């Protein structure tokens, strides 16, 4: 118990867990807001093209609940029965028949479930958001690293020389790891769940899981609440087993070899889970996999059976057995190898190879300048390179998740034709276009009148020749069409034409309204140009809005930048504060001003690289997906940039934005270095920096407006919020 409370109740551990929970919640809440905003803007775009997507989705959902799911179950049953009979008659292999029988049996249990309508967006957001799954590992892995550091220290010799210092101690540590995994999932995943409840509304925990279309293939008879519980248990198992695996491997192998083996195993599992197709013979490796267990969704969004020597069994059952077996195996292994056996490490040959290589290379790459030595300390000693790699991986994830919608083709064509310097000529051209649209609307109205009359006439004709039958009650089955009736055909054609004209009218009215707005904006801009003596252009500001106004992707980039600065630099000063190192360094000629100048220069360089790469990603995506037109146009062409009191182009503004971001990032780097300088250890420095810089931003992100002015992300993203 003493060991468990020592490991779990330490201030550091509690603070880290709470910090992670707050940060995770902030990220997730930002994601949900962005998801809702993107969804609504997508609906808006589709509405402008004449499609009411929201209504369509609602109708499809209703259809699914009332009809499609029942039909799916029936078809499943029929198919399974047919195939089973065929297999029996043709004396096909036992596995095939067993699989079909099992499938039919599994889905037969679902016949009497009641599907209910409810709010599904929250669950879908939870399932799509995978950052939390990676954050779950942080606390347990930090504990593992702490245990490994202790095992190399003198205190370990002391502890192992006591009565309960081996197997019982190891057992306590295993329990601590398990409890920490539970707490991680509770705080992080639980936090997400609580947020979706608050943001989207209750999903209806008692509803059958299959009420959500995504879970249609699920054969488990559980409710939504049950799904969350099972998901949480699976995530706990995944985190615990991974942490145990890494702990055992790194305890028994020398550093490089241990990390290589761990990375190899985990990397292999990741590849199996991503790239092995479901129909492959190696499907077992894809299903019975810690990554698949972590995601948990695939056990509920698909129906999978696994083949074991001709016998069939469900993937969920197999996973449960695997988890139990693995947990027992790893526990026994840990107790034996870490608890009972002598602490001997394997793989010293690799260490010898590393030393040999370093010895050979040192002749070519001597680090005799202070600047390069400080760079080595930062990049290798304090693992800033590792931080850069991890941030780069997250950057790729942000890149892939960016939703930058280009405007519809018609708008693009409009701007292509009319954007540029606003002159009398260009105003006239737009006015002409508007007149053209108005004339087109008039023509469409005339067509509508014509087709309305034609439809009425043809309907009357049909009724007269078909004993008063209503042509709109004739059902049309494309697989069993009725005999060709020219009068019926005329009615349908008139109806189709009428509908088409109505759609066209809707679209034309929408475009007319838009062009009128653009014209009004052009006139207003021309007036401003005349008053101020600055040039004014018509510019498609879709991309510039995303750059200078509010945008979720930029905030995510800013968060990534902030995390990089924190993790890369918070140890810079504290690294030298341990023992008497600082005293030793300060006793030398260059150990004060020049040494700090080198440190600051390196931090500035890395900050510049980070700003360029992270926001460069965003700019490149913007250019690719939407395009940044007319960068030579005066910035004041856009209304929200008219506060700039001097002449500058839009391109200049974009460059200025980068410069401002760099300066803001440098300011925060300075704060981090200052905190680090006065912190006793790198860990304390990291905690303090997170509290000072990250926590206020996370609180502002989660909606607490009082922290708005302390929101570092807001300043780095330079977005209006």
């Amino acid at each position, binding site marked *: 118990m003493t060991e468990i409370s020592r490991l779990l109740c330490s201030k550091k551990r509690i603070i880290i867990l709470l910090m992670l929970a707050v940060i995770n919640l902030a990220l997730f809440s930002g994601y949900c807001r962005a998801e809702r905003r993107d969804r609504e803007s997508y609906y808006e775009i589709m509405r402008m093209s004449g499609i009411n997507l929201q209504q369509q989705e609602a109708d499809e959902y209703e259809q699914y609940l009332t009809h499609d799911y029942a039909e799916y179950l029936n078809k499943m049953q029929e198919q399974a029965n047919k195939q089973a009979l065929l297999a029996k008659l043709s004396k096909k292999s036992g596995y095939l028949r067993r699989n079909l029988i099992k499938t039919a049996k599994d889905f037969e249990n679902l016949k009497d479930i009641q599907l209910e309508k409810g709010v599904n967006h929250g669950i879908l957001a939870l399932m799509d958001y995978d950052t939390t799954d990676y954050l779950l590992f942080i606390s347990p892995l930090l504990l593992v690293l702490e245990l490994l550091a202790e095992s190399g220290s003198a205190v370990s010799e002391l502890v192992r020389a006591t009565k309960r210092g081996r197997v019982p101690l190891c057992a306590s540590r295993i329990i601590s790891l398990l409890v920490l995994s539970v707490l991680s999932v509770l705080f992080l995943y639980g936090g997400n769940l609580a947020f979706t409840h608050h943001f989207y509304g209750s999903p209806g925990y008692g509803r059958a899981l299959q009420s959500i279309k995504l879970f249609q293939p699920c054969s488990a008879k559980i409710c939504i609440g049950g799904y969350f519980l099972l998901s949480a248990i699976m995530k706990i198992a995944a985190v615990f087993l991974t942490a145990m695996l890494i702990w055992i491997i790194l305890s028994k192998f020398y550093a490089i070899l241990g990390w290589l083996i761990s990375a190899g195993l985990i990397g292999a599992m990741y590849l199996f889970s991503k790239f092995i197709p479901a129909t492959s013979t190696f499907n077992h490796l894809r299903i019975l996999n810690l990554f698949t267990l972590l995601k948990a969704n695939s056990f509920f969004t698909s129906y999978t059976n696994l083949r074991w020597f001709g016998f069939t069994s469900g993937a969920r059952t197999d996973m449960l057995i695997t988890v139990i077996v693995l947990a027992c195996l790893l526990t026994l292994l840990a107790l034996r190898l870490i608890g009972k056996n002598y602490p001997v490490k394997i793989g010293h040959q690799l260490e010898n190879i590393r*030393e040999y290589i370093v010895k050979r290379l*040192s002749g070519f790459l001597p680090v005799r300048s202070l600047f390069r030595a400080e760079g080595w300390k930062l990049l290798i000693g304090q693992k800033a390179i590792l931080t850069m790699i991890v941030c780069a991986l997250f950057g790729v994830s942000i890149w892939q998740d960016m939703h930058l919608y280009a405007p519809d083709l018609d708008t693009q064509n409009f701007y292509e034709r009319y954007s540029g310097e606003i002159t009398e000529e260009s105003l006239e051209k737009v006015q002409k276009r508007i007149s053209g649209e108005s004339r087109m609307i008039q023509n469409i109205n005339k067509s509508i009148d014509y087709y309305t009359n034609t439809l009425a006439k043809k309907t009357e004709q049909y009724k007269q020749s078909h004993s008063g039958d209503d042509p709109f009650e004739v059902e049309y089955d494309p697989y069993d069409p009725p005999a060709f009736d020219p009068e019926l055909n005329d009615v349908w054609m008139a109806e189709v034409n009428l509908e088409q004209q109505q759609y066209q009218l809707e679209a034309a009215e929408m475009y007319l309204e838009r062009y009128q707005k653009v014209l009004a904006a052009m006139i207003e801009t021309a007036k401003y140009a005349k008053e101020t003596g600055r040039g004014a252009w018509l510019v498609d500001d879709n991309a510039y809005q995303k750059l200078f106004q509010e945008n979720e992707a930029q905030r995510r980039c800013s968060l990534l930048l902030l995390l990089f600065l924190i993790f890369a630099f918070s140890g810079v000063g504290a690294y030298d504060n341990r023992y008497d190192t600082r005293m030793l360094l*300060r006793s030398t000629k260059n150990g004060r001003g020049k040494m700090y100048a080198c440190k600051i220069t390196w931090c500035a360089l890395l900050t510049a690289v980070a700003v360029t790469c992270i926001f460069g990603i965003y700019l490149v995506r913007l250019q690719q997906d939407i395009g940044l037109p007319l960068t030579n146009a005066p910035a004041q062409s856009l209304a929200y940039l008219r506060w700039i009191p001097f002449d500058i182009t839009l391109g200049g503004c974009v460059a200025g934005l980068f410069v401002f971001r760099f300066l803001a990032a440098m300011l925060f780097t300075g704060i981090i270095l200052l905190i680090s300088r006065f912190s006793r250890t790198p860990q304390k420095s990291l905690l303090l920096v997170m509290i000072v810089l990250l926590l206020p931003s996370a609180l502002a992100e989660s909606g607490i407006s009082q922290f708005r002015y302390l929101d570092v992300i807001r300043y780095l993203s330079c977005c209006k919020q």
Partner: protein
Amino acid sequence: MQNKLEIKNLTMKYGDFYALQDVSFTLEPGVTGLLGANGAGKSTLMKLMTDHMKRTSGEILWNGQDILTMGSKWRELVGYTPQLQGIYDDFSPKRFLYYMGALKGMKRKDIKEQTEQVLEAVNLSHVSHKKIGQFSGGMRQRVLLASSLLGKPQVLILDEPTAGLDPEERIRIRNDIAELARDCIVLLATHVVSDIACVAKNVLLIRGGKRIAFDTPQGMLANAEGKIGEFTGTYEEIAELQKQYPNGEIAQRRDSFVLRIAEYPLPEGCIPVRDSVTLEDVCHLYLKGDRAYD
């Protein structure tokens, strides 16, 4: 003209507590041993001499010039080994020495040359590429010592440089220090009194932040004459006597036991020791209690 480091009325005060009070002495080329109990002010003195802390009052003069006005020029002259082993575990000795050479403002050619020399001097050439994190305490101490020797310093400030070293290594390092001290001022703080006895030109005794004595080892030994005595008897008798003289040292000689004490005047029954007085006895005499050195 010989180099001279003068400490004049040096005081370091934390609130009402004096870590150092009005300490004065002068160092010239050669080894000066610094002896004192834990918390006496040895490390404080060394930190003030390396300008790591701001003194409350007093002066530290290098050839007449205060080190505060010299700035980095003073630190160019200094080689320092701290008490705690503050080095980076993921550095190799070679990389660490290159780094320290760069910090000392040495030329690159000199860094390479001197690194090889000092690694050889401290017997670490064969592990120059291994990570310091794998070293024993003694090996780490040798790395620190090597770093203090880089740049051919004129003032060496060594805080427990032989801690954790085996007897053979200690002798070797002692001899190296003695060799260096011919042209260099060396201030050597240690609890291993025999290190000082062998090589020191002068010994500085500090107690409670104050200078108690600054004399040659021979002078101190002469001063201690008649103040070191021994009681002889059975174990029970000696154990009983020790209750009266708890700082005394018990030793066994053939069939009897001996309690060696440092007192002035010596009590009745205590036989004065004449030939085998050591610096350790001097420490017993002056570093505990409040006896003045006369």
